[in-house]
């Protein structure tokens, strides 16, 4: 397998309003292989969406990506690109789908034109050719009666149809990486399954790598090859999906699983994680999960690095050194 995306030590900062800066994303590193799906899982506010926006330098001002951060696409250093060279990467190498299809499409343009625009931004083709490609894309994402839907406006489509259009836009310039930021959160449950199925199918047929950003562990199982769990601006655990589900090791990951209701097995009381996710201004020194962690011990006052649990399983917790037992 070849590596298509490599993110190293990504740090994103925002002014804190008092002359200093806060770091909602603080040293995130991960990589993506060709054809692979990596799920970035975490609660809202953990920095997962900002991480995805940073891949194409889409962080809204006054936020900024700190120097020392790296995003590499093959041998291209994305964060060093500006202007036209950056534009050529957006959509062409990485396509993006956003959370809310109701507001992510421009209300005053026909959906066919919104797709064709993405094609013509990267390929030198005629309007007619772009339109015919848009038609193919609409068919590919499973929109019935695609010919007439080309001339529909977003408000004339249902939420699920709009999200399919968003996917078609993201695919317009045939990117090798698809970033899906909570692609199903705003949709009905039945529609969620359909959209996820479309994404699975496209990954298989197009051989794309997918970065799936979600707060929902339920959609990760059986869909992602690997999972990275984020907490307070950092990745706290990373493992192949099967292993993470079998043996969640970081106390935060364990807490996440304990708070997800299960349909099989005996009925159990859910155990929510105590307290709430602190904002970046209130992150503690040392391990950031420490104040909410049932297993915190003396060493938690020091910030842990990502430590190996098993060869391809790492977590940001000192317990990894002792195989889970307190030292």
């Amino acid at each position, binding site marked *: 397998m070849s590596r298509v995306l490599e993110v190293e030590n990504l740090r994103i900062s925002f002014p804190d309003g008092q002359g200093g800066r806060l770091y909602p994303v603080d040293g995130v590193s991960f990589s993506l292989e060709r054809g692979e799906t990596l799920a970035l899982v975490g609660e809202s506010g953990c920095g997962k969406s900002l991480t995805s*926006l940073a891949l*194409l330098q*889409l962080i809204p001002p006054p936020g900024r990506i700190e120097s020392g951060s790296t995003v590499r696409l093959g041998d291209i250093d994305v964060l060093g690109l500006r202007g*036209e060279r950056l*534009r*050529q*990467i*957006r*959509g*062409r190498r990485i*396509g*993006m789908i*956003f959370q*809310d299809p109701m*507001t*992510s*499409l*421009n*209300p*005053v*343009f*026909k959906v066919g034109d919104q797709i064709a*625009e*993405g094609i013509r*931004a*990267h390929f030198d083709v005629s309007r007619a050719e772009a339109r015919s490609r848009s038609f193919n894309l609409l068919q590919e994402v499973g929109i019935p009666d695609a010919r007439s839907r080309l001339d529909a*406006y977003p*408000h004339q489509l249902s939420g699920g149809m709009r999200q399919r259009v*968003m996917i078609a*836009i*993201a695919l*317009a*310039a045939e990117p090798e990486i698809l970033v899906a930021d909570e692609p199903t959160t705003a949709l009905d449950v039945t529609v969620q399954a359909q959209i996820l199925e479309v994404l699975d199918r496209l990954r298989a047929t197009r051989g794309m790598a997918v970065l799936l950003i979600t707060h929902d562990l339920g959609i990760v199982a059986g869909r992602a090859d690997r999972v990275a769990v984020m907490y307070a601006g950092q990745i706290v655990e990373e493992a192949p999906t099967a292993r993470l589900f079998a043996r969640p090791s970081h106390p935060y990951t364990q807490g996440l699983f304990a708070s997800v209701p299960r349909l099989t097995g005996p009925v159990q009381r859910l155990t929510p994680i105590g307290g709430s996710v602190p904002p970046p201004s209130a992150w503690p020194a040392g391990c950031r999960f420490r104040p909410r962690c049932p297993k915190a011990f003396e060493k938690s006052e020091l910030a842990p690095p990502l430590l190996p649990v098993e060869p391809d399983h790492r977590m940001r917790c000192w317990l990894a050194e002792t195989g889970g037992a307190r030292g």
Partner: protein
Amino acid sequence: MRRWLLRRTAQAAVTLAIAITLLFVLMRAAPGDPLSRLQGDRLLSREEIASLRERYGLDQPLLTQFGAFVGGLARGDLGVSIEYGRPVTSLLAERLPATLQLGGAVILLNFTLGLWLGVRQAVRRGSREDRWLTVASLGGYATPSFWLGLVLAWLVGVKWGLLPPAGHSDPLLDSGAGFLERTVDLLRHLALPVLTLSAVTIATTMRHQRNAMLDVLRDPFMLTARAKGLSERAVTWRHAWRNALFPVVTLFGLWLPILVTGSVFVEAVFAWPGLGSLAAAAVGHRDYPLLMGAALLTAVLVVAASLLTDLVYALLDPRVRLS
């Protein structure tokens, strides 16, 4: 669409009828009438006044007078101005071109320069340029146009002699002057009144356009547009601006009648022969027929502007249906 147009036209007719009736009654309720001035100055005898009153129908009951006015209106006859002794329609028609020139130039300037500056400000929000333009637009907004007009007329027109300080055309211009020469002369005369009226209006346009753009720039579809790989120009002008036009269209709908009927102050300062000064004089003279004519024109324009605004909305926004 056809049904919408029919319904809106019917609505417009009702609005106009109410406006006309109200105006007619209010005008008669104001103290004095067209002839009381002549009477006070003892220029005319009691008998002469009475015969004039009879001649203009002012001795008739109010209802009869109103009936006569509406009857004339149906024939396209707005009556004869008491002050000028000429048909109201021809007086209005005479003044209309100058007013359209002034109002048209101001609207054009707003629609180009005003919108462009507002968009620029929003895109460069917080920059030095944005802050200076904000100061300038607040200054323009706070400046009374009659004062600015006087200062410009005196400074640019009289002291520096760069542009004509008053009037619509050079009276000494050769009547055989070519089209180009006459156009240049008109533009020179237009410059100061247009500048005066534009200072306030462009300030408002800029503020509206800036705020509308800032709202749209926060919309999630802007992220989609950028993530597709569109140029910043396409993102700003195609995706953002199209959506930020709506508040400005409303603003223009409100302005259209004001600019077309003319600014009383600016026309007075620059001796611009437009409708504004004509209407102002008509109020002073209690020139009922002329005043009703000018008011009717304004009312028609207000109704037409609101119709036009709705049409433009429907044209710009596919979610708006004319039904």
